[in-house]
């Protein structure tokens, strides 16, 4: 296996008239699992369509699995598996025939496609339901069938658009474990676009974060989390003076009652906090490094960019509303 990135773009730009959907993207996605994050309207769909060769980039270059996105869209779509977010199944067909047909559309011989459809449905846990009409399926079963359609030809890269969206806990767990099996067991690559940060964190080791068509962050999740390192303390008595003292010393402090999180600034952060507590007479009953979640990371990156996103719920707003809420005040936004 080579270390070459599976998806690579250089100054990739896509404009619809005056609206720039993708702005000068330089992206390198390595093998393995990568999460594609971004709010509604961030450019995720445009990015996916561009790398699938379905729409032409306005400028810039790119390749997927070594194929040029401008001229080799057919080759790309033959070698990747795409699992769409929305329903893409005929409710009047049996799962087995739907999956077989999706294989035939890739150029598989009907007999081979049928054999692979059995294997793919077995893999996604639909072996017992394969002869049932899709119209009678639950959301989880439909998602599993869509996944089977996407992996029937054993693609090197699976692009999964919101694979766990709308699933109950059990189906969600199964979907996550299935994607993990593909990545770690079968050694395939997954590009997973999702609003559910927990799921991305459980499957992916890398993320790409898009914001308004620009690249906000890319890299390993663990590396990126380092930018949001915090020390969490539980204070008994004197929390307010301690908070004030820390703020006076230039620390960035987030406080919820007796729990405070102080941004990690260096090796002496811990001793400075203890000294401040001793100075104001506050007791620190507990102190540990706070492990940031991907959602914290997302909020920190947005905060660094000057956008006041409040929570992942903001991600699920309509594009228009999302833009209004998270735009910096200098651009007339900031009001919920």
């Amino acid at each position: 296996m080579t270390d070459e990135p599976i998806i690579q773009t250089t100054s990739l730009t896509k404009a619809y008239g005056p609206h720039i959907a993708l702005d000068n993207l330089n992206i390198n996605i390595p093998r393995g699992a990568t999460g594609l994050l971004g709010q509604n309207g961030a450019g995720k769909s445009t990015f996916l369509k561009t790398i699938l060769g379905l729409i032409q980039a306005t400028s810039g270059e790119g390749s997927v699995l070594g194929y040029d996105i401008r001229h080799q869209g057919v080759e790309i779509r033959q070698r990747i598996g795409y699992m769409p977010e929305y329903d893409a199944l005929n409710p009047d067909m049996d799962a087995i025939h739907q999956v077989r047909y999706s294989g035939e559309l890739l150029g598989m011989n009907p007999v081979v496609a049928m054999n692979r459809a059995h294997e793919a449905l077995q893999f996604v846990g639909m072996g017992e339901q394969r002869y049932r009409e899709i119209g009678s399926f639950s959301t989880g079963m439909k998602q599993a069938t869509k996944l089977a359609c996407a992996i029937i030809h054993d693609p090197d890269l699976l692009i999964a658009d919101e694979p766990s969206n709308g699933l109950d806990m059990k189906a969600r767990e199964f979907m996550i474990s299935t994607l993990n099996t593909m990545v770690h067991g079968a050694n395939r690559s997954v590009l997973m676009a999702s609003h559910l940060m927990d799921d991305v964190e459980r499957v992916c080791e890398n993320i790409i974060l898009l914001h308004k068509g620009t690249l906000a962050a890319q890299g390993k999740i663990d590396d990126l989390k380092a930018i949001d390192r915090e020390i969490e303390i539980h204070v008994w008595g004197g929390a307010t003076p301690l908070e004030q003292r820390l703020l006076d010393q230039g620390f960035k402090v987030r406080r919820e009652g007796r729990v405070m999180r102080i941004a990690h600034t260096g090796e002496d952060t811990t001793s400075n906090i203890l000294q401040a507590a001793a100075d104001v007479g506050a007791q620190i009953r507990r102190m540990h490094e706070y492990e940031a979640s991907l959602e914290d990371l997302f909020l920190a990156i947005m905060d660094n960019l000057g956008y006041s996103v409040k929570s992942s719920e903001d991600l699920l707003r309509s594009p228009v509303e999302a833009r209004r809420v998270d735009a910096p005040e200098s651009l007339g936004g900031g009001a919920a």
Partner: protein
Amino acid sequence: MNEDETAPEAPVTGQGRMDVAWGANTGDEHPEDVQHASTPQSGEIFEQLYTPWTGQLNPRWMRNWSILRHHLLGIFKKGHRPWTMPTRIFILIAFLASLADAGMTLLSGVVGSSEFHSLFGVSRDNLYGHVLGFFPRNVLYYPLVAALLVGGVISEDRQHGTSALYFSRPISRFDYVGMKFLSVALIQALVILVTYALYFLAEVVAFGRGWAWMVDIFPMFLAGMFAGILLIITYTSIGLSLSSVSTGRFFPGIGLLAIVFGTKTLASIVKNLFEREILYLISPYDCVAHVGQALIGTQTTYDQYSWTYSLVALVAMNALALYVLASRVASMEVTRE
């Protein structure tokens, strides 16, 4: 449980069911004992195994063939495109009804009646009538077959999002729409052109026609075949363009019927009231009929303008319909519909 309780003649007391419901305990346990529902350990029989595949994917023609096959075989068997049962039944009815003239020709051969044969046997007018006769074929059969077929062919891909299944794979929009067009046209051809050929064959078989007769009649036969192809292309173009702007199967179907019968009715009313035939140029059926009459050489029923006007109108109708179809299919999404 002793043997008396399980003997066939033992009375039914329900004791066994109660034992199962409450467990086999005596019920004398301490009232403050904590009871736990026992969770049986189920065996894990599902093993998730990813099976690699190293086969070769076939080229473009095979992908296109799969679309065509999916739609065509769906008429006959399960596992392919799920055409509705009314559609399948009506196609069968139209197919059998379209064979009526072939059957009557065979019958006239058996009976040996020349009058019977002159009514139903192969002739210039009857060849025209098999394809373009207004009643019953272009009132009861062919437009209805077309409407039932085109109704959901593209609109249901929009409705169910199955367009993503095509376009996220190496299927171009041209191939997608081309194969859909061809499959709908071929099913109509089965009803119109195959029965037309069988009708011709029935005459050959029933009357023992030789090569000289066949060579004589063949140009007329070809003209009728060409008129049938023109009819199929026109109905399919209009129908698919309506299907491409919709997300259900009702509107395209009823829209096609409205266009075919509405324009015909309007033109007939205008002709009867004002003795002006020019409005037939907006009627797809009448344009095909006019061109068909000219091709086959039967007596024309449109006297006030040349058949070339109808041909131009047909080309314009098809061009407009194909333009709508192409632009709508070009706008179909992969990431969301």
